[in-house]
């Protein structure tokens, strides 16, 4: 299992809001694809998935406030249903 954590967004940013999830629970997500968009005062920030896997938990609703370092989702990177792409080095066009 891989935890999705609100990353360090820099100085003086301790909280952010979940704008929206790009995926739903049960979806397969590729490594480096953006899983969630966070919003701070004047910026949006997309958090990429660290591994390919099946999203098993989205712990927060859209509009919820989250803190830096908080676990917001869980990805199962060892799921049997996973058909890992043979070409993981393919260029990332997700944005």
């Amino acid at each position, binding site marked *: 299992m891989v935890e999705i954590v609100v990353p360090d967004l820099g100085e003086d940013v301790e909280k952010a809001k979940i704008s929206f999830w790009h995926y739903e629970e049960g979806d397969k997500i590729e490594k480096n694809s953006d899983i969630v968009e966070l919003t*701070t*005062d004047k910026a*949006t920030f997309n958090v990429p998935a660290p591994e390919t896997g099946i999203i098993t938990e989205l712990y927060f609703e859209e509009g919820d406030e989250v803190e830096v370092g908080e676990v917001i989702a869980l990805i199962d990177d060892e799921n049997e249903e996973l058909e890992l792409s043979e070409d993981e080095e393919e260029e*990332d066009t997700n944005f």
Partner: protein
Amino acid sequence: MKIKNFYDVDYAEMLDIQKKEVAEVVNGGENRILFPHFNHTMTMGRDFKDRDILVTENILKSLGIKLFGADRGGNITYHGPGQIVCYPVINLNYWKKDINLFIRSIENVIIRALAVAGVVSVKKKQLTGVWVKDKKIASIGVGFSKWVSYHGFSLNADPRLYYFSIMNPCGIKDAEYTSIKKETGKDFDIELLKGYIIDELERCFDKAAALAY
């Protein structure tokens, strides 16, 4: 840095173009500065609330203003002729991964470019953007994907300021806006001003410059 101008571009079309430009930088491409030149447009960031548009949809239509949602932070703003809109697409993985530092640095870039145009401007605590006394002259709203920036700022050279009065720009009630023309009484060549902005952005986001700016 690559410099790209987009004249008479539609906002929705520009969103697609920007997406491709950002993907190129995410995949290791050179940092770039995009200058879209929009016709009358209002864009709504993630903090937009309906109450911040002060006129009806019909009035917007008769004024020729198109309304778009934008995947950036902040509230509503206006873009149109007489304004410089600048999207610095910068890979912060080679700079400093810090949202606020990036925004404050963009403010510095604008302040330095305005100084060349003869306008003294300042930052304000808790109010992102660039100000001439209590009047706003530049607005900022950005987004990041894999620490590559998109969207950016708009700077008023000589737009019709009336358009800012039909909304609460950036969600600020009774906000007053100004322009270089209003402050100096002179016309300032937009292309020349863009040149100053490019100089400052290159100085600021040069890989080696990092935090020296």
